[in-house]
């Protein structure tokens, strides 16, 4: 049984619930024959991917949904084998080059060259070009981006590229200027509510408004998360009445408890204990940035207004270090230590002033 998110994912541009302007634009773009390279960007769970697949469907018809998954092997210059999963139909191909790590440039170059040199085999195809979807484009290395830049111009006649990214900040300017930028903002409360109600209707029940509110509060604009939440909630208490507790993933509650640990005691021994917890989180595949942000959010809730800004300041500082450095735990811990000192000093100073 598939997840609701997948089961009730819209397949057509017309079926999309929000950003209708965008949908109609995409529709007319797909119809006009002058289809550009595109860059979809926006926060996670805003519906970028859904919009891309809908657009494809619009371009090529239902045939594009006949997918197969290939595993392709590339040989790095040092003769290492790189396995990359490729999802493809007769009309398009989809890759996540970050799977190839540092060799993403190689994968991009090889694949695109290959596709550009092949003709559209389906004579009934609606379009003369094929589409290449590149996921997580903002994690492409500079090298790979540079390689992409040239190919985009060179093979315009029989290939279009659709990039999917969370933000445009990490894309080099030449790429941005060669693409039509499509911003997919997160849905607002009303839109989320509509979608949630739609999903519940399809699943065969009515969603009480309070439950919807609760889910929306919790999901912070991430629709995927909201629908997952809805499913979990329905699973937990089938009638959806009474006091509801959102079933958060374990790691979220775990992070909050870590924050409580930080607040409740500040000592070297506690640093050690918090470290254990961080190791535990990291080994459950939770990205360190997310850990830092989640814990920081909780800490900020619990500390005095005057040191909130400092807490976030250090979170920002150590987050960058984390990106550059290789051992994430150091930076997480350094932040914790910083926060503990801040907190301790805050009380110490307060005691002093109270004493005066």
């Amino acid at each position, binding site marked *: 049984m598939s997840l609701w998110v997948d089961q009730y994912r819209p397949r057509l541009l017309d079926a999309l619930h929000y950003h209708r302007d965008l949908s109609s634009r995409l529709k*007319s773009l797909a119809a006009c024959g002058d289809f550009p390279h595109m860059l979809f960007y926006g926060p996670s769970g805003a519906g970028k991917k859904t919009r891309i697949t809908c657009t494809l469907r619009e371009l090529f018809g239902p045939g594009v949904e006949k997918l197969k998954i290939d595993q392709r092997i590339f040989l790095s210059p040092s003769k290492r084998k790189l396995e990359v999963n490729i999802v493809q139909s007769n009309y398009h191909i989809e890759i996540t080059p970050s799977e190839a790590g540092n060799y993403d440039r190689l994968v991009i170059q090889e694949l695109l060259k290959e596709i550009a040199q*092949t003709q559209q*085999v389906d004579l009934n195809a609606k379009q003369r070009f094929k589409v290449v979807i590149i996921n997580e484009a903002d994690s492409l290395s500079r090298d790979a981006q540079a390689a992409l830049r040239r190919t985009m111009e060179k093979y*315009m006649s029989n290939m279009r590229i659709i990039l999917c990214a969370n*933000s445009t*900040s990490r894309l080099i300017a030449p790429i941005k200027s060669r693409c039509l930028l499509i911003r997919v903002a997160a849905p607002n409360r009303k839109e989320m509510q509509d979608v949630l109600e739609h999903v519940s209707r399809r699943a065969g029940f009515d969603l009480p408004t309070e439950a919807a509110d609760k889910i929306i509060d919790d999901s912070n604009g991430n629709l995927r998360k909201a629908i997952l939440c809805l499913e979990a909630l329905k699973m937990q208490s089938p009638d959806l009445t009474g006091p509801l507790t959102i079933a958060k993933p374990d790691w979220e509650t775990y992070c909050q408890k870590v924050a409580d640990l930080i607040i409740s005691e500040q000592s070297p021994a506690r640093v050690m204990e918090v470290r254990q917890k961080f190791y535990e989180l990291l080994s459950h595949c939770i990205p360190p940035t997310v850990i830092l942000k989640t814990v920081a959010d909780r800490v900020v809730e619990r500390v005095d*207004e005057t040191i909130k800004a400092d807490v976030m300041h250090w979170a920002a500082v150590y*987050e960058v270090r984390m*990106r550059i450095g290789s051992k994430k735990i150091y930076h997480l811990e350094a932040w914790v230590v910083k926060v503990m000192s801040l907190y301790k000093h805050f009380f110490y100073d307060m005691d002093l002033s109270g004493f005066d």
Partner: protein
Amino acid sequence: MSFFTKPQPQSAKPAQKHVVDPALQPWVEKYRPKTIDEVSAQDHTVAVLRKTLSSTNLPHMLFYGPPGTGKTSTILALARQLFGPDNFRNRVLELNASDERGISIVREKIKNFARQTPRAQTIASNGKEYPCPPYKIIILDEADSMTQDAQGALRRIMESYARITRFCLVCNYVTRIIEPLASRCSKFRFTPLDNLSSSARLVHIASEEHVDVNSAVVDTLIDVSSGDLRRAITYLQSAHRLSSSTDPPTPISPRDIQEIAGVVPDVVINSLLSTIGIESIDSASGTSRASFDSIRNQASAMMREGYSASQILSQVHDIVVLHPALNASQKSRCAIIFGEADKALCDGADEELWILEVSLRVHKVISS
């Protein structure tokens, strides 16, 4: 049927040379200057190059300057004028960073390319006479992204083929070209385009393409592209594409241009600024003390909208730096914050954290 069917060698169609339908051709290519005199706004450079055209003796050249100022266009136009359309293809080799550019490959390509000695054939098929000097031109685009080693190797190559080839290095940052290489070339600096020449060119293209643009749109185009003509033309084409694809075609609005360029709407930026405590210049409401939570909510709301942090940063920067009500000390402290944030974002930092960080710190500076 496999997705990856290789083209049959003996298929009826001649090997496709990626000929682009002129209607779909990027305007940047379509309206590339054909002669160096057509090049916008680089009068000084053009004047010097015109001389070399008459003497047909060309030095090695190094073109540098910000993107979209006509460097590649100039060298292509120059080559075209030197060799004419017939010889252009076999006399000019263009290599750039996206092509495989390990130095061994470059060497191999250059060797092969330089092997055949050029024959002088001055009368072209179109009846015009071209100087067609007895050397070939190798254009190395984006030369500043070559490694030091590769540049060092290039130096030797340049020497050994100096008799029959001229190199033209094109780059954004002349400081990234190693000194021995730079000293072998005559350097030409390309300056950012002034608004007048940009707008003239844009209006020209628009009228050629029968696009209806008013002056507000042109101003926005120039504004968002900050002297980069290529970007401006690309935005214009994208906007045209979007507006003509709807039925009936809608006119292009400045907001469309902003959205295409990924620019954050002024309203959004202004509301962020007023939360921080900087009042936008036109509105003069009383300042309110912002709380941590209000700033944080503002930042996360902006992130939810999907705006790019670096774009927000640069727009906030533009406003703060020119803001009349802030004093120099405040501005410089803000500038430091912006600098740090920019570095962090380049390093791939989390966008939400840093927008919040910038907001909080600017707020602190303003309210102190």
